[in-house]
């Protein structure tokens, strides 16, 4: 092993030795969030869940027929018998996306506001996005052991860049005249950001959120390797048993979830 690897190991050792309080806190917080939403999702009768999915979809997309299809897609997952796994996957995807967006959007705002820190953020984002996803699993396991939490952490790191990048891009694309509008009426910095820049950048930001969701979903499947569970685990199991039927079914369930989440965020994006 070369120096680089040695340093990486030292860094990981240092963090696990000295930042224990932080890791434990994060672990507890994520555990709390995951078991909260997870308990809710798996506790909900599938029929009720499907109805709620319909209503939520209708509110976001404003399209009744599309929303019926969303409900129907969930029904197919139920009918194939992958409901519990799908709920676990959905749980992890939602929590990971939420975290990635909560971190990514402010990061993007900072990058857009300051030309000085923008290059640094860019380098970090490039690193996060191009490093093969599996690599994140290793420190995640070192810090958090096996289970849902390390899966979510690795997912957040992997899925965060588009949210930050698109936010940065969206704000920088706002026409200069719009900034002048805000300034000339005496807006302060937060008014300019929240009343002018973010709303105008919103379609672009939603494009980034859409990608973040898709990346989260794909990573959550990979996280099954470290005990993430859900549909990913079904696929890993079907692979070890060479069970084509199970593999296709679980894969189809993932595709359906991906399509649902994609359509929902896409239409939020195209809203005028």
């Amino acid at each position, binding site marked *: 092993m070369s120096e680089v690897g040695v340093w990486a190991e030292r860094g990981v050792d240092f963090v696990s030795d000295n930042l224990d309080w932080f890791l434990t806190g994060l672990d507890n917080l994520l555990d709390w969030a995951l078991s909260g939403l997870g308990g809710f999702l798996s506790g909900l009768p599938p029929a009720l869940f499907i109805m709620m999915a319909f209503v939520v979809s209708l509110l976001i997309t404003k399209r009744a027929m599309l929303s019926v299809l969303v409900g129907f897609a969930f029904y197919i997952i139920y009918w194939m018998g992958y409901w519990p796994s799908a709920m676990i996957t959905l749980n992890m995807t939602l929590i990971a996306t939420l975290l990635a967006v909560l971190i990514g959007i402010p990061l993007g705002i900072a990058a857009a506001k300051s030309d000085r820190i923008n290059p640094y953020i860019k380098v970090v984002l490039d690193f996060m996005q191009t490093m093969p996803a599996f690599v994140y699993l290793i420190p995640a396991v070192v810090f958090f052991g096996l289970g849902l939490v390390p899966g979510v952490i690795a997912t957040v790191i992997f899925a965060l860049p588009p949210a930050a990048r698109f936010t940065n891009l969206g704000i920088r694309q706002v026409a200069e005249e*719009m900034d*002048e509008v805000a*300034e*000339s009426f005496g807006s302060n910095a937060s008014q300019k950001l929240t009343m002018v820049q973010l709303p105008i950048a919103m379609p672009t930001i939603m494009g980034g959120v859409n990608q973040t969701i898709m990346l989260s979903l794909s990573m959550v499947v990979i996280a099954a390797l470290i005990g993430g569970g859900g549909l990913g685990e079904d696929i890993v199991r079907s692979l070890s048993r060479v069970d084509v039927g199970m593999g296709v079914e679980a894969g189809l369930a993932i595709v359906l979830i991906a399509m649902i989440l994609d359509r929902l965020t896409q239409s939020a994006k195209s809203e005028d």
Partner: protein
Amino acid sequence: MLSEILNKKPLKAADDKVYEWLRAQIDPVILDIKKPFKYAFTYINRKMDRSLSVEQIYENVDCPVDDEGNRLTIQVRNLSKIFGKFPETAIPLLEKGMTKDEILKTTGMTVGLYGVDFDVREGEIFVLMGLSGSGKSTLERCLNRLHEPTTGEVNIEGLNLTKLSNQNLRAIRRKKMSMVFQNFGLLPHRNVLNNVAYGLEVQGIPESERLEAAQKAIDMVGLSGYEKSKPSSLSGGMKQRVGLARGLANDPGILFMDEAFSALDPLIRSDMQDELLKIQAKLSKTIVFVTHDLDEALKIGDRIALMNDGKVVQIGTAEDILQRPADDYVSRFVEDVDRSKVLTAGVFMKRPRELVKSNQGPRTVLKLMEGSNWNVAFAVDKAGKFQGIVETDDALRAVRDNLPLASIIDGDVPTVGIDTPMSEVIQHLVTTHYSIPVLDDENYLVGVVRPSSAVDVMNVGGNNNE
């Protein structure tokens, strides 16, 4: 393909119905959820704005007044703006007499403005005109400090804006001035009403109050009924009406308009100019209007400042600019003006001095006319409506024969309107021996064109084929 099917009309209509019904059920709940966030946001904003009130900022400041008693709303003193790395270093070079091009070549910096001085009187439309790149927008943006001036002063009602802290500057921008933009600058995510209310929202004015003020401004620009429309659904002219309404909604004394009508079709543009003049007659704002179009400048400007290479080369009324161009640049500028449109009675008329009231006695009138050496006087009624002319001979006769003044007023004389082309006015001038009265739509005497103006027209219109 799926979305194609879903977009078919009947499906879409059913979709919309279901959606609207659900929305109606859920909206109140969403509003309730949003409320605490809104309050928190308003609260944070209040805390962030630690600026003084405008009254406090102006406590020991008096608005300067010129010799004629006009309040000088805007005073610009020795204003320079250099774009580039070390703006201050370009000033000594300019003082040595280097030109804009030379400075760009040797230092790589752009001279936006250099040594600009002028005053804008309260209630006038002051036009900044010049070729592209002459610094009109830069100057306008220095007036509200969207650009930081490199040197010099901008005084707003006597207050030096360049010295103000950012917080106090915001307070001034909120209350004293607003801006109308070339590409309208409407917020695409807000409807017309909320666009117009933007300036008031920034001030933290409660929703009901600001929407009421916004509604008033919308009514004023003739957009009633479009309050709920999104900007994307409006035509260019309507969009700029929204821009104008937004500029008026917070009732500022000063309005900055940068090529506000340049993006509009000629006909719409002319409409908007009329609309602006109508509103201005009602509100008397101080307006600084940027344009590169001489016709527009002549039509709406009370005074015009011509700019070239970051400097103001001439300031004057439309007539000054047309008749007495200060240098070659200005004369070239006014050369291709559409003279039939520009050479109108309104441009050449003078304030009528030889005025008498139709209810005065003939003796008074005669004395007045002989004392001032007038051959002819213009008679108006108490309100100022034109009645006719009085000649000295007739006045003499009236005094001798004891006739009332009304009987000798000659009402059957040629008169012209403000827009009458000078070619027509000159025809009247050659058939009479007195000045031609200029009347507005309601027969008020607004000026007279003197025979001497015919010569001016020749000068200005020398190379004109029409």
